[in-house]
């Protein structure tokens, strides 16, 4: 195992940024190709947009708190919910998960950096500028038609609403271009992660000894390559339609609105798994460490992840049960969708078995992961309900769907992202996040989440459609909407506590040491924060839990792993 002494002689200073001015430090961060700094940049960028997208969500909920609310106009509301969806998926979800991957994969596999450090920096800045392009539409979106406005076509941007006949100005162009640019950034990072995992593993780290986090990020990156591509293609086709006289989606010239839906959802559904696999990845690290047991059924967990990725590519049209496909196609997508439940079920059972017989420590990261288990169970079950095509004809585009996918995106993904930040923040900064604030954050967020999203299911069952800026007072939706909105405020308070904690603990947090959680993967073997070169000596591993072997020489893992 490594030590923290330099292999190059102490006269060479590889550590950086002490005694620098602010401008020098800024310059270092801008030109950095270090995977750890890029990972932190990704996550900070994502957290910034989490606040922006969260503010948009609060605006939506204030508008919907009472029927016939006049606070926000129809036009502005449509922009806000479009920007909320686009921001949360592309600028928050994608950036934070790739931030985690960037930071952790090289550390977990005992490498000194990613396979292509400069591609890494290039990808980050592409993604970053893509986000700015999207938000620049607030200034430039009107083009020659007037002052600026943001895209207002929904994050799904169904054709032909995006045609120039229905969406004049440049707002839709900014939307399409921003997603093309961030998409290229994402593709670059995905290629990088795949190359890193395949070629940079330390001695002894076979594929079947790879920590599950890295395994899932590998699967995730492969899935990303397959899913982002059709989205990029569709955006280019849309721009061809809008500016070069193409007719791909121009229904008045023989184009097809349904083709856009197919392109969008063959991206859009695997995209959900691109976002949720990293959440599983985080849970796979946190749950064993805080249960004090090895993950149950490692090979099954790997197989289930690969299985989910493959099956997820064949389910996209379950977003399209209402567009008038044949009964045979509908039945096919019912079956393929329900098949996802099998590997997903395996995962939940394996996490349960990991906890079973353990000694659970209820630290903040574990609290978030335990809540994730329940919420993801519910999200999976409402997913099965939505896969029942005839029931889907009722539930599709209703608030039930909104509730379902927020259960996945918030209840599973955001909860795991929070778990991951509480878990690895000490590694990245050398200080623990404040535990008392963490508990406040957890409980408030948990309560807010359930008040908001549990309630939404009922709104959908009572017939409330999504994407509406106002609703009639005689439909029986008033009380439920008010409750939903109150939950949104509670969540917002919780996130502000979290943001405060991030800043406060950076200066005043308790010193973490190398291995504050008594964990088992390689990142905990180096200093906190790790030096630029990660490991002074290349680590050598003999099992999936190298630090367990080190701490328990009498009972090492490699005696049991096949």
């Amino acid at each position, binding site marked *: 195992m490594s030590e923290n002494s330099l292999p190059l002689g102490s006269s060479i200073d590889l550590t950086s940024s002490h005694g620098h001015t602010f401008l020098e430090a800024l310059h270092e961060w801008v030109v950095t190709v270090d995977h750890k700094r890029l990972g932190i940049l990704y996550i900070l960028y994502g957290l910034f947009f989490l606040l922006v997208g969260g503010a948009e969500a609060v605006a939506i909920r204030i508008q919907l708190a009472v029927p016939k609310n006049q606070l926000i106009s*129809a036009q502005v509301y*449509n922009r806000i919910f479009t920007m909320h969806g686009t921001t949360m998926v592309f600028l928050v979800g994608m950036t934070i998960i790739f931030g985690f991957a960037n930071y952790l994969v090289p550390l977990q596999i005992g490498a000194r950096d990613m396979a292509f450090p400069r591609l890494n920096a290039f990808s980050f800045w592409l993604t970053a500028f893509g986000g700015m392009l999207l938000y620049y539409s607030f200034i430039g979106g009107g083009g020659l038609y007037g002052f600026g406005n943001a895209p207002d076509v929904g994050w799904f941007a169904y054709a032909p*609403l995006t045609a120039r006949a*229905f969406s004049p100005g440049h707002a839709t162009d900014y939307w399409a271009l921003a997603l093309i640019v961030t998409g290229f950034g994402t593709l670059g990072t995905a290629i990088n992660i795949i190359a890193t995992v395949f070629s940079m593993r330390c001695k002894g780290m076979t594929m079947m000894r790879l920590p599950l986090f890295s395994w899932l990020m590998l699967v995730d990156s492969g899935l990303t390559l397959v899913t982002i591509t059709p989205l990029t293609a569709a955006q280019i086709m849309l721009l061809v339609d809008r500016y070069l006289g193409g007719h791909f989606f121009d*229904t*008045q010239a*023989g*184009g*097809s*609105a349904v083709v856009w839906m197919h392109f969008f959802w063959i991206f859009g559904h695997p995209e959900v798994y691109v976002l949720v696999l990293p959440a599983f990845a985080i849970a796979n690290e946190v749950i064993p460490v805080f249960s*004090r047991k*090895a993950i*149950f059924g490692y*090979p099954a967990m790997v197989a289930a992840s690969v299985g989910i990725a493959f099956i997820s590519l064949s389910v996209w049209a379950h977003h399209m049960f*209402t*567009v*008038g496909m044949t*009964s045979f196609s509908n039945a096919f997508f*019912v079956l393929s969708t329900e098949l996802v*439940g*099998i590997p997903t*079920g*395996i995962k939940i*059972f*394996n996490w349960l*078995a990991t*906890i*079973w*017989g*353990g*000694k*659970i420590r209820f630290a903040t990261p574990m609290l978030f992961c*335990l809540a994730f288990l329940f919420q993801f*169970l*519910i999200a999976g*079950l409402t997913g099965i*309900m939505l*896969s*029942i*095509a*005839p029931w889907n*004809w*009722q539930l*599709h*585009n*209703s608030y039930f769907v909104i509730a379902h996918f927020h259960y996945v995106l918030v209840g599973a993904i955001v909860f795991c992202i929070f778990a991951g930040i509480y878990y690895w923040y000490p590694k990245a900064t050398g200080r623990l996040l404040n535990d008392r604030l963490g508990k406040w954050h957890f409980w408030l967020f948990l309560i807010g989440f359930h008040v908001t999203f549990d309630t939404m299911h009922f709104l959908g069952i*009572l*017939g409330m*459609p999504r*994407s*509406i*800026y106002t*609703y*009639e*007072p*005689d*439909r*029986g939706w008033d009380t439920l909407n008010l409750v939903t909105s109150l939950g949104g405020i509670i969540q917002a308070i919780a996130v502000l506590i979290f943001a405060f904690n991030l800043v406060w603990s950076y200066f005043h947090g308790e010193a973490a040491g190398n291995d504050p959680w008594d964990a088992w993967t390689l990142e905990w073997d180096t200093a906190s924060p790790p030096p630029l070169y990660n490991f002074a000596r290349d680590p050598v591993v003999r099992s999936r839990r190298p630090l367990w072997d080190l701490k328990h020489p009498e*009972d090492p893992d490699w005696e*049991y792993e096949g």
Partner: protein
Amino acid sequence: MHPMATVSVSLCSPLLLRVPRGVLWIAAIGQQAVPSTLAPASTPAHEIKTLALFTLSITGAIFFVVGGLLTYAIIKYRGKDTDRLSEPPQIYGSTQIELAWTVIPILIVIVLFLTTARLIFAIQDAPEPDSALEVTVTGHQFWWEFRYPKLGIDTANELHVPLSNEQAPIPTYLALLSADVDHSFWVPQLAGKTDLIPNHPNASWINPLRPGLYLGQCAQFCGAQHALMLLRVYVDTPDQFSVWVKNQQQPAIQDPRAEAGRRVFETEACMNCHTIKGTVATGRFGPDLTHLMSRETLGAGAAPNTVQNVREWIKDPGDFKSGCLMPAMQLSDQQIDQLTDYLSTLR
């Protein structure tokens, strides 16, 4: 009480008295008509509810079993602070157990899939009986056009269909088209939704078994006023339906007292977009106004259809529905008064 509620009470047509039994519990709460998917009044919606409850019982059982096990494990295996030094026994997996919890979900999937597939084919491929009423629904930004090709009726936003029954069904078959962007036809108590997509004709059907008014709205985001693209479906008894049909088949009433307003309608831009049968106005971009006052709402449910609201609407539709495609026509107050007088005769 909200104005809308007062209005529907004041309209006090026999419609209100025919509240379907399934929503009586809602009536107990107040003057509401909740478009609940669990209060079906028509064949596909009813079958969907049955399948939904079946699915809910299976998923509910899974939730209680798995959630219960999770809760048990979390309570039972909580670590004690005093016991930080020793680690629990390490267990790496078990092929038998993992096989078991793979096979059980597979069986559940098979059951769910077969039940679902059966209902998909039963609803989607149901043959259209000769007795069926045919209606062509065309979605527009942001209103509904209803044409009854065999009856020669053209109306908007408020669909009238005959009550069906088990012995001699009179289902209504809907051809679903769009004039511009995607929309979706959704009246939860009658059937699931089906999208209206330009250049992609769709179909749906309902077989309503209880008379009454059923509310719905566009369920596919279609632009600025997607939220105010509301739908009203009246399931009429056979007598009511034939009275309604007879009235709708008449050309517009020519009331000599409203002659001035008719001239305004025919000489200003109104006629470019609207049809009034029996006049020179044959525009098709906006709703047919031949029997405007037989409808209960204006602007696809944006406002109750009162004379005062008609006047306000002509003056500036954006006041009710900003972003709707009808512009404020900049008419003089006198012209607006004349138009209002004329339109309010169109029963």
